[in-house]
């Protein structure tokens, strides 16, 4: 089974001295010119749906629905319901199609929000395991990514 161990990312907060962890995965996403655009996404099991600011998607040429979904908002922002055609470097050459909500006005200034990789339409294709055991290769442990 194809497997990728991604070291967890650590940072120490200036304000509290706490070391906090998160996991990011690099996805190459195909844009409308057929170019694979590499993005960092935070792997967030608390997130229902993968999200990306719509303005970022537009700037990088990702296919984006023209119309927002009426009556749906996430974090107060309008939602465009689309797809990411993606692959994961270092995890075979499989192409995945993940549902994605593009947030906000595509023509607005890009919010510096992180892209989030959520559960829906993802965990039936990839298995994520958070393992916080430090190893010689990872100071705070790893996110294990496996192709299902």
């Amino acid at each position: 089974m194809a497997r990728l161990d991604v070291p967890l990312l650590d940072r120490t907060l200036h304000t509290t001295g706490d070391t906090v962890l998160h996991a990011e995965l690099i996805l190459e996403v195909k844009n409308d010119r057929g170019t694979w655009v590499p993005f960092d996404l935070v792997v967030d099991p608390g997130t229902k749906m993968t999200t990306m600011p719509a303005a970022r998607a537009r700037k990088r040429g990702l296919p984006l629905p023209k119309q927002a979904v009426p009556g749906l908002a996430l974090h107060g922002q309008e939602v465009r319901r689309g797809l990411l055609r993606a692959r994961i470097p270092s995890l075979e050459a499989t192409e995945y199609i993940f549902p994605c909500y593009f947030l906000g006005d595509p023509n607005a200034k890009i919010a510096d929000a992180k892209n989030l990789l959520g559960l829906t339409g993802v965990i039936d294709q990839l298995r994520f395991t958070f393992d916080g055991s430090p190893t010689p290769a990872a100071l705070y442990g790893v996110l294990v990514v496996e192709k299902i």
Partner: protein
Amino acid sequence: MRSARESRPTREGDLMASDLIDYTLPAHDPNFPKPRGLLPVPPEVAENVARREAQLLRERGIQITADARQHSLDYRTLNWYFDNTEVLYRRTPQGIEVLAAGSEEIDQYLEEHPLETLDGAVIGVG
């Protein structure tokens, strides 16, 4: 006529639920230089990583690899200078290299250097 739900105001630029912004980081100080190219590792970052390395050796007998040390130094350094800023970066054997920061600078950089020519470059948020 639009329903009450549809007419709710929307906001641009909201943070995601998982964002945790440490405003005391130099990244948020407009007077602190934000370099491009290979980033120098701040002493505080090097100390924090060295402290963890020593702790792992002392408490668990784990000797971390040079790659693991560099991985932590790279991403901590990126965060130090560019917390919550969109960046085009890549990891190199010498450390982390920022090619452009901020959406417009990234646009301009990618116009001059197409992504296909940028081995290992990634668009992320510091």
